[in-house]
């Protein structure tokens, strides 16, 4: 990651020359404007949102308690539909989580400068999404109190081990690794900002608190030199990680024999779908956030437009996935596959969900061909919400629709969720929002350090293009 290529890169950067930071900013001004929302006391708006989030969270607690008390029978699941909302939500949340890592890691490796304004935001989202996702693998088992540790390879007195051919075992490792790494990555990036919080806070208590978390960071040149590598390598590791995680999640289905699950295209198309939904979710939150936290000067319309482009691209990958599924079903001549895709999906009892999915995931993103749409905040926001819906429907199709009609017609059964299913779903949204609002309250939503660096770097380019790539390693 040396200066030369990056600076060369910069000049050929398709984004250039565009404003990634608006107005004449100094480090000081950036510092103040970006920390402003942390210093500012919680407004009425924040409290109202927080209230809603908390009540939804309450719903989650009720749902969990009831499920543990009553058993999985509290859900709508049955035989053949052994998995339903639980796994749908799991996959959906995990997918959403991916955008964060993608933005912070992959765009970092690709030296996309525009990422700096949104990566902190997206990484936080990853964490919270993964937390929501993590609830389900445990909760959906019949006996969580055993699942909690029997899935771990520890020397038990029974002398029996986990079964490592099962995708669920892979999941355990994949998801926990993903969570750990995302957390470390996020925190490492946060440390310098925490230091500036520590140093620019007014009240002593706040300074001490932030000071504790800043771990005594003092911007030492010796630290920076290792830090850059540590951060870069974490990014480098997260990149294959993020791809592997959703690949493994897709194995939960792809490895099975069930028509609609048993397909090799799942890994790539799950990952694309993950990024798709992830960006949609980032947009859904970023648009109001930049509005109310006064971040418009760093999260410019340019950023949003780029996100739209990504959504358009991934949306089309997903669409390709759908087409491929159908093609292979037809081409393989497998009657069960054909039944699943040409009969059940289009004409079965779950038809509505399927069509919703097609509309939201294949049709809606197409509007992003138009710059007007890409640059209109309202349109983007609305579209991104639709995409979130669409992606949830996709998971419903994969999980429930495939299961409810498989090989032997004698075992076909319909599926209907219960209030517990629904409250668990809403509940996780509550959990996510709660964590997110807290994050916005106590931590800078934008990576100050990196934005400053970016500014500094662009300043240099303005002056003498020869200097200034170095930050590329970091920015």
């Amino acid at each position, binding site marked *: 990651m040396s200066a030369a290529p990056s600076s060369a890169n910069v000049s050929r950067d398709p984004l250039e020359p565009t404003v990634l930071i608006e107005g004449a900013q100094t480090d000081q001004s950036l510092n103040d404007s970006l920390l402003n929302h942390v210093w500012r006391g919680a407004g009425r708006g924040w409290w109202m949102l927080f209230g809603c989030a908390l009540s939804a969270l309450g719903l989650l607690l009720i749902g969990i308690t009831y499920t543990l008390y009553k058993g999985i029978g509290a859900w709508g699941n049955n035989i053949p539909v052994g998995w339903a909302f639980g796994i749908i939500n799991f996959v959906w949340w995990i997918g959403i989580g991916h955008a964060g890592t993608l933005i912070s890691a992959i765009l970092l490796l690709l030296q996309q400068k525009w990422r700096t304004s949104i990566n902190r935001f997206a990484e936080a989202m990853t964490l919270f999404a993964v937390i929501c996702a993590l609830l389900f693998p445990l909760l959906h088992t019949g006996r969580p109190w055993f699942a909690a540790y029997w899935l771990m390879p520890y020397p038990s007195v029974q002398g029996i081990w986990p079964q490592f051919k099962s995708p669920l075992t892979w999941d355990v490792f994949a998801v926990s690794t993903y969570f750990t790494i995302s957390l470390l990555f996020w925190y490492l990036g946060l440390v310098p900002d925490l230091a500036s919080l520590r140093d620019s806070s007014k009240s002593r208590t706040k300074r001490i608190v932030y000071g504790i978390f800043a771990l005594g960071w003092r911007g030492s040149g010796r630290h920076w030199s290792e830090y850059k590598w540590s951060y870069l390598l974490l990014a480098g590791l997260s990149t294959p990680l993020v791809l592997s995680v959703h690949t493994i999640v897709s194995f939960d289905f792809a490895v099975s024999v069930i028509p609609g699950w048993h397909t090799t295209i799942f890994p790539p198309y799950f990952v694309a779908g993950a990024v798709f939904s992830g960006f949609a979710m980032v947009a859904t939150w970023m648009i109001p956030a930049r509005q109310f936290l006064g971040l418009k000067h760093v999260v410019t319309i340019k950023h949003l437009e780029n996100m739209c482009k990504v959504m358009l691209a991934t949306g089309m990958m997903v669409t390709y996935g759908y087409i491929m599924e159908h093609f292979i079903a037809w081409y393989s001549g497998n009657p069960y596959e054909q039944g699943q895709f040409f009969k059940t999906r289009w004409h079965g009892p779950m038809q509505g969900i399927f069509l919703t999915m097609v509309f939201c995931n294949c049709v809606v993103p197409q509007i992003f061909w138009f710059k007007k749409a890409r640059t209109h905040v309202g349109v983007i926001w609305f579209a991104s919400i639709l995409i979130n819906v669409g992606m949830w429907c996709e998971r419903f199709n994969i999980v429930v629709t495939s299961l409810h009609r498989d*090989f*032997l017609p004698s075992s076909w059964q319909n599926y209907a969720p219960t209030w517990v299913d629904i409250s668990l779903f809403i509940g996780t949204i509550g959990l996510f929002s709660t964590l997110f609002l807290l994050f916005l309250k106590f931590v800078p939503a934008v990576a100050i350090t990196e934005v400053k660096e970016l500014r500094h770097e662009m300043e240099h380019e303005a002056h003498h293009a020869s200097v200034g790539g170095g930050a590329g390693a970091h920015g």
Partner: protein
Amino acid sequence: MSCDDNKEARAKDRQKRRSLPIVTAEAPRPSTATAARAAPRYWRSIEEREAAKAIALGAVNEFPPGADELAEGSVSRRGFMQLLGASTALATVGAACRKPNEKIVPFVRRPEELTPGNPLHFATAYALEGFASGLLATSHEGRPTKIEGNPDHPETLGGTTAIEQALVLGLYDDDRAKVLRRGGESTAWRVFLEDTKARAERLEANKGAGLRFLVEPSASPLLGDLRRRILARFPMAKFVSYSSTTSDGAAEGPRLAFGQPLVARHDLDKAKVILSLDADFLGEGPELPRATRAFAARRAPGPEMNRLYVVEPALTGTGAMADHRLRMRGTDIPSFAAALVAELATDTPALAPLAGLPKSATFDQRWIRALAHDLQRSRGSSVVIAGRRQPAAVHALAAAINAALGNVGSTVTYLLSPFDGSSGPKALGALVEDIAAGGVDTLVITASNPVYTAPVDFKLGQLLQRVPTTIYHGVYEDETAAVCGTMIPATHPLETWGDARALDGTVSIVQPLITPLWGAFAETQVLAAFLDEGDVSAHELVRRYWFGQRPGDQTAAFDAAWEKWLADGVLPGTAAQPVTVPAVDGQALATVIGTQLAALTAQADGLELGFVNDQRLHDGRFANNAWLQELPHSITKHTWDNAVMISEATAKAQGFETGDVVALQYRDRSVEGPILIVPGHADDAVTVALGHGREGAGESIAKGVGFNAGVIRTSDAPWYDRGLKLARTGDEHKFAITQTQWTMSPDGRASPPPAVDATLAEVLNEGSKFHEELEERRGPLPTIHEPVDYSHVQYKWGMSIDLNKCTGCNACVVACQAENNIPVVGKENVRKGRHMQWIRIDRYFSGPIADPEVINQPLGCVQCETAPCEYVCPVNATVHSDEGLNEMAYNRCIGTRYCSNNCPYKVRRFNFLDYTSEYTAARMMGTNPDVTVRARGVMEKCTYCVQRIERKRIDTRIAGTTIKDGELQTACQQGCPARAIEFGSLNDPGAKVTRMHADARRYDLLHEIGTRPRTAYLARVRNINPDLAKVD
């Protein structure tokens, strides 16, 4: 073990069966422990009763493996707490938590024949509809846990019915009546006896003029004897036997034909052509086990294969097996019989006089002609069977045809009816008149719940209140108990001594497996009370009687004989001799039934209302048996309900959909029930099952399930009548149906049919397409890794199921449920698709929905060698055994349900809720101690009854032998009356199952996905009459 093979194994089996040593006490020995501490025979107070019950139930705490389950009511809850405990840090290292201390309660005096931990087998008998079937009951520490058929019994031949399999659950039913009460007061047996003594003396004065007994039709010699002795003492008294399931026609028909009431017994193993006129002989009635076995035995494809014609309104199990089925309103069948006779008459002079009988409808002549020719082609080896629901005329014609075709003596024999008089509505009518006339002073009811089953126009409920003294002897506090003054708790068949006679006359001694759990009393005791012998035990009564039957027998000699009777389960030489019937006087008969037919055929037109006994609840007496309530109907697969069954066309015409609740308006009465469209139902006809909509105060399970069709059932039209109207009520009903799809490709997908069938011609022709297709569906498939080689293990367990034999009678389903402690989940959960039966019988319709062909396909876990369920389990809870069983370790399961998702056959069942921890102590006694009672959140499935395998393995390994073919049976196989299921080691070339696997009709279900199942299927064969070859 089937009757016809493996003699020596059978002999061994018989030795293993125990006869009960002579005991003078009421208590049979195996349950000494219970007896010793058993409840007092009668109660002084409720508290005392409860206390006594507690002791009685506590008495089973010997500790065989699984004894822990015995006290399950508590154990499972404790187990559950442990599970919760396991979530605490302490236990997070392999359930390390220390157990709370437990009690072990040994016997005080252990009966010597009892080895704690090893089950005993007792031969006994159970009589339904008056005729006995011989059973073998398995008992663990004095707790009967399982029923099997007695292979040595001529009418059972080792087969069972679903109802018999479910008897065990009924025994431990906590809803059973537990108090002997007079009015609201609990009273004592002693007191009752004193009253009765006094009353008897009073009645004797006027020769018992006001004394009536309303009893079940029964062929029991002992009951017959008691009856005679009572009538001797009270000449004016009357015995009325009534059962809503028997009809006057069946007894009357032969009388018309041969001049005396006779019972027809059919030997289907001699029959090449069978015609059923509305007779569901494979689905109900005393002939079921033997008829099914004989019928199935002749299904082997070949020149000798039988051909079944069925004429019936609603699709039955028999109809499903038909090679040719003609759907027809029940009220048209007499005309059909007449038409058939007319057709036959052309070639059979004996029938000529009957040729001109009146007919109301016209029928498919081609069909009738083909049928007639077929019947005639096989004179002496054909048979016409008339259904119980048909009037005397039809039975008479059937008899006439059989006689004319020379079938009498070969395929059908006639026996003297053991019943005196009929037990249909006619008999009951007489009693009702007596009561109405105030001529009845004391009425003793031992019939099962007549107030519910009696025709509505008798208004029996109200009438009974007019009778000064009513004594009801029943198992439950049911509708009848509610209106009777005195209620005597009746013993369960497994609780009492007695005897019973089978259809062929063979007598079996009924011996108890356990003392009455809640102090109940036998029918014999109640009757004996009127002979001042009420204090004599049921055991003594039956012994005395039979001792009396063997004059000049020394006690010792008798004891020896008695021992043998008990051990064998049959009394040798008691079978009745067939009656040699006179030739039918065609002219006479013609005149008699001519008028009857004229009356029948002159019926008002309009929708036909047809009643049928529910195939699970019978006349409603089993309505409190959850196993039977949750048993899927063999055709519609609905549970926990009865329905207004109707054909699609008629429903359309009337504008009804399945689920619409309609009011059935018949004459001036009406009842509401949900429509259920059934393929193959006759048009313009409706069929409703009796036995539902119970309102017994004591029957918590039966209460309010389904609707009571009895409230529009009148004495003059107990089975069929026209003039029904259906009116929409606007309500909707959601059936709890276990199989929602009708056909093998509901959405028109091109998948290979799961259940294969072919015509006999195709099967016999080696080169036919059928054989080509089957070749595709068996044998090795290309695979990337070597299949595990099982040829060297001692046993390679495998199963085969012959679709050509399975009649869908459901015996296997209940047998499995009883053997494997499978819980019931209730109506709501069945609706959600969470039923638990490990083996299900998939029923597929093909062809036009109006006239479908049916295949039954029993499906349990097929034990795939490359099981898809196994590699997805994260915790090794389901893996392969060295012998190729697909094992399921319940205690290791964490309930991800991934295995079920990945099971192409969807034969895994999941404990979505806690179905077992609320079991009462009594219910726990009924569980099989060799099988874990599964906890909440655990996956379960069929493992070829591995507990039986392991027991047998250990026994043989100790004995130093090996398991021979036929020695080891799975529950479903043993219960199956058709012997459609074979099980054994595929490494044994001589084994039946091995031969079946090599059969030309063999194919593997979903073979194309490479699961290598161990259960093989044999294709269904349809023996089409060439004259009727597929134009329809």
